[in-house]
């Protein structure tokens, strides 16, 4: 029974992604980048190795040219994909887990627990993330762990806020109230009754948080707060800026990396647009209505359209 219902929700998602053109495009983009992250590094050389004259434009031997240190840009972009995506997805998941823990606790228990946690959530929401991340990261040894930690600290609050509101509304429903009255354990109620109602929301949040994590990670690394010796998208841009690539006209040192970042962010956002309709039913109703009218060669009108097909 349980497995069955999970199967159906999984197929609902596949269906949602398949039906929405944007979501399909997003899924394809993300699929390609995952492939690059996993297999790509085996096909390119050592990204650290100086292999040519610095700041060479793209050529046959170096498809994307060389950096200010004479390294191969293509190798750097491909190898950087792995680390950047790994951090992005891990942080995305952890951020939502922390957010869920705090948000659901606040929403489920209510009372003073909610008051305290809500205050905490709101404070973290209003304190600007990047400066806070910088201050914390500056005190810690640089590296992926530090990066992940500060991204989680500055990123969880939004998810917590949304999940708290969702928990509050689910909590009021009859079946949850009934479970509480019959004395089921809190953990059981949350895992059996509350969490299943929010799976699509949580998946959407993980995707959204991954977009955030990749963007913020790149920003911090650009500032030099990452480990500048590892190859990631952010450190690529850091070095491009540091080597004054811009003033040398070496666009190839930062354009490919930036395009990759944008494509991943765009792909994830498009993937999420399939979920928009789950959270905003008006969008779905409108879409099927417009599709139907479109099929008849009609444009939507402000007044209820008349399509004489019943006669």
């Amino acid at each position: 029974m349980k497995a069955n219902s999970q199967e159906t929700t999984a197929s609902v998602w596949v269906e949602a992604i398949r039906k929405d053109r944007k979501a399909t495009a997003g899924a394809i983009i993300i699929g390609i980048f995952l492939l690059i992250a996993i297999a790509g590094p085996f096909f390119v050389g050592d990204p650290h190795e100086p292999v040519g004259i610095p700041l060479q434009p793209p050529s046959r031997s170096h498809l994307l040219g060389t950096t200010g240190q004479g390294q191969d840009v293509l190798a750097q972009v491909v190898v950087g994909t792995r680390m950047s995506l790994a951090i992005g997805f891990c942080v995305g998941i952890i951020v939502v887990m922390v957010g869920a823990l705090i948000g659901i606790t606040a929403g489920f228990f209510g009372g003073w627990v909610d008051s305290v946690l809500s205050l905490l959530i709101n404070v973290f929401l209003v304190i600007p993330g990047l400066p806070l991340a910088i201050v914390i990261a500056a005190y810690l040894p640089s590296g992926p762990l530090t990066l992940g930690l500060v991204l989680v600290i500055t990123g969880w609050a939004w998810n917590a806020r949304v999940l708290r509101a969702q928990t509050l509304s689910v909590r009021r429903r009859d079946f949850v109230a009934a479970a509480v009255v019959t004395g089921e354990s809190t953990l059981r109620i949350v895992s059996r009754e509350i969490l299943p109602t929010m799976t699509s929301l949580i998946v959407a949040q993980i995707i959204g948080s991954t977009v955030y994590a990749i963007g913020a990670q790149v920003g911090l690394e650009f500032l030099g707060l990452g480990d500048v010796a590892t190859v990631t998208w952010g450190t690529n841009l850091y070095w491009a800026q540091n080597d004054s690539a811009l003033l040398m006209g070496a666009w190839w040192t930062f354009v490919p990396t930036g395009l990759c970042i944008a494509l991943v962010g765009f792909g994830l956002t498009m993937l999420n647009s399939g979920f928009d309709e789950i959270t905003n039913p008006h969008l779905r109703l409108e879409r099927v209505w417009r599709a139907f009218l479109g099929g008849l060669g009609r444009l939507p009108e402000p007044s209820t359209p008349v399509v004489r097909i019943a006669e």
Partner: protein
Amino acid sequence: MNEPVLKIENLSVDYVSGETLVRAVDRVSLDVKPGEIVGLAGESGCGKTTLAKAILRILPPPAIITGGKIEYGGKDILEINEGELRNLRWQKISIVFQSAMNALNPVIRVGEQITDVILAHKSVSPDEAYDRARQLLEMVGIHPIHINSYSHQLSGGMRQRVCIALALALEPEIVIMDEPTTALDVIVEREILNQIKDLQARLGFSVIYITHDLAHLLQFSHRLAILYAAHIAEIAPTQELRENPLHPYTQKLMRAMPSLAQSEVKPETIPGTPPSLANPPPGCRFHPRCDRAIEICRREKPPLVEKATNHLVACHLVS
């Protein structure tokens, strides 16, 4: 009897749902005469609100009108353009929604919501429009001071009175009332019903009154239509229907009413649930809940036929 002001003929309305259509109003015909109160009764989900909003063509997506005719003033509302539609709306036909809470814009003052419709249709100055709005509020028993209130500052009953005042702002010929008292408590409900009756008697507009509560309609409508699962089951003058209900559904509805006269008789309930419009039963849509259903009910949809003067019914048992 004089000519009807509004003639609905074979009106069908569908909701687009994925690749299929769900018919919420199926070939419904109904006419409204000047000064007449026509009641439209049925369980929730039978299509009565859809019908009401279709008359003004304000059904939001995913609704489409799929057939029929709505004749008003010699024209078919389904064929006129946006400009003509705008002129007709509120000047000729206005509507009171079920939930006044949702019908009034929470961030616009009551006064502006009344005056904007006056200013949109009549060439009067804003001051004159405000004077008229104050009169309207007084007419429904609200102190004119509330012209500057927001809807959240009013009680539920007051909000619905504002909506009624709004509906009468341009002295329309027809006012559609879609369960205007459902969200209110019994005492306020009674007051508002009396007020509607008074205003109707004074101003002489026609009313299409929609409710799931038959008791209201038996008291003050002139004619009554019973809607079941997108179809009209029975339609008759109220007096006639009260004395001689023909459709088994109407009869059950009557018996489901708490009776004031014989308080010892317990109101019956109708077994079963209304059918889903997405997948209606074949034949007569009421047959699964009808204890007198015979073979033909399961196969054939009964036509609406006139059994007595102005008394139409769709039931195989009767014909």
